[in-house]
């Protein structure tokens, strides 16, 4: 898998920790909610950078107290028709104040990218063969929007000049 960040693909540097493994793997581990709840203290002690994945039936409230500890939160879209994580993304940004990397994983398709981005998702795990230039046009196919969402925070972000790449860049891929 590759990661689509703005209009280019970059190699994944995070490690999805196997659910059965103990939590002693390398740094930059992405763990499940179950692992987190089980090995929380070990993970905090051993990992410099922390990532977690929320499955589509795991709302962010489950990790409410720890949200700001994570550098990356992955939101799983098991099927593109399962839209729960759009709301999770918005809650993470607006309610829980998460400012790290929000990453869409799973059944991430070109025609959902713009919606995901508008909900505050920054990066997208996609197949290696994806044409990044073509896919990134999906972000701008509709240039105007009727409703406030998290890319109005986008406008605000332009004001304080933090681009998507800078956000992603914070986590040195």
């Amino acid at each position, binding site marked *: 898998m590759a990661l689509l960040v703005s209009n280019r693909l970059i190699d994944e540097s995070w490690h999805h920790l196997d659910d059965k493994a103990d939590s002693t793997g390398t740094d930059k581990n992405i763990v499940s909610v179950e692992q987190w709840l089980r090995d929380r203290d070990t993970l905090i002690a051993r990992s410099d950078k922390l990532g977690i994945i929320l499955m589509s039936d795991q709302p962010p409230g489950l990790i409410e107290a720890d949200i700001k500890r994570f550098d990356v939160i992955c939101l799983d879209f098991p099927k*593109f028709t399962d839209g729960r994580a759009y709301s999770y993304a918005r809650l993470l940004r607006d309610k829980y104040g998460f400012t790290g990397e929000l990453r869409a994983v799973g059944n991430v398709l070109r025609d959902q990218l713009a*919606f995901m981005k508008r*909900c505050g998702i920054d990066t997208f795990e996609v197949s290696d063969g994806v044409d990044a230039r073509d896919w990134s046009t999906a972000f701008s196919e*509709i240039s*105007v929007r*009727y409703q406030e*969402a998290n890319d*109005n925070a986008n406008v605000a972000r332009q004001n304080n000049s933090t681009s998507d790449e800078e956000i992603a860049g914070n986590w040195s891929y």
Partner: protein
Amino acid sequence: MYRYDEFDHTIVRERVDQFRDQVARRLSGELTEEEFRPLRLMNGLYLQLHAYMLRVAIPYGTLSSKQMRMLAHIARRYDRGYGHFTTRQNIQYNWPNLEDVPDLLADMASVEMHAIQTSGNCIRNVTADPYAGVATDELEDSRIYAEIIRQWSTLHPEFSFLPRKFKIAVSGAPIDRAAVRFHDIGLQMRQNTRGELGFGVLVGGGQGRTPVIAQTIKDFLPKQDLLSYLEAILRVYNMLGRRDNIYKARIKFLVNEIGRDKFAALVEEEWERIRGGALDLHRDEINRIRAYFRPALYELITEQESAYDTARRSDREFDRWCASNILPHKQPGYGIVNISLKPVGKAPGDATADQMDVIAELAELYSFDELRVTHKQNVVLGHVRLADLHSVWQQLDAAMLATANIGLASDIIACPGLDYCNLANARSIPVAQKINERFSDPEQLARIGQIRINISGCINACGHHHVGDIGILGVDRRGEEYYQITLGGDPADNAAIGESIGPSFSYDEIVDAVETVISTFEGVRETGKTFANTWRRVGATPFKENLYGPTRK
């Protein structure tokens, strides 16, 4: 009529380009049919029995003459010369080719029309009182709020992949003509004790396989909080609605499962967090949208319209049409004209391209260039001078559009049924046609009075059989078409779901059975009472006895 600005144009134009690209990727094989399906459904394109079916959005049913002419053009150029107006105040075309759809949508975009969110698991076309802005009883024009909701819900990034489709209706009058109790969200405008206007908010209503009457979760929502409250409802539903079974995925199941009070509390909690924020509707914003509805410049008419009165006295047929099809208008000297799309022998809601052109022309000449489509599948000229009515009627009559049956027994709601739909068990259109023929005598229609006969070809209930005084539901019995009768449904303020009256009838028996129901009603009614009223008084027994013979003791 809402006036689109450059902003609205851009979004529609860009959506056409986006869809053109999606169709190209499907035709090239880059997208599988499974991947393409949600994309075409986001744009109103269904695969039906014989061909693709395209559903075009008519926001809250309102159209200009120019737009109606475009619908006629689409019918001629891309279809077989007609279109079908639906119970969602939309229009459907049954025969477009997939390759042509991008061009069709581009033609429509030239008059600000589109198919955005007419299908798919998203917030669908918002519906409203078809008499909004002209009714004598309304508190405020509900189209303003329907338009505000339309804008907010269009390509909403968070709510485009909901558990299931989502329908919102708005009523601005104390008498409900928008069936707010049968929508996922119903908004009923009301006044609080301080004289301020707001909405009663109902959730979880709907028809379909499991009909449910919506429950109130907020008695009074201030207008300025409309969008933040809607967003809170949708967010709770998006996260908690069932996704494992499409038959249990509508919001009504969630509300039922966790209970109204718990659901209302979850919404309230989320709303408290977001209210007063970016979604706050300031008075300026409401006024900005209100200003986009060009007001009709009525003439001040102080004298009695003598030409109108004379014509009614001298022309019996015109008088009959006025009695059933004209409603009082808030402006003295004007009337609301209902054009029936239910003439004898035609499919309910169908209009030919030529008829659409005639309707467009009449709206331009006599009704401030504006039309409405009703959920009863008829068309309304919102404001016609009484003095012009006789001429309008003559022109409608020449186009086979002057059927005098609004609200009467032959004004039947019917889904497309087995003639078009791949979900249907039975035909709806020919049953509607046969009932319409049986009740074509104007004296008889007038004697029976207001009655709703609604026909659905399957349990998905697109023909609203649950809320008909007489509901007819097509079922499959060992490969044969049968029809079940339900009685006592009501879509409005006394909302009720019709009760099944007994075993179903064959295709050949159903029209006689309906006639039996109606003659039973006429036999037991008290003078001037409606079917609904009579049903509540006498119950099922006399109908059962006449349909199935005396019940054994």
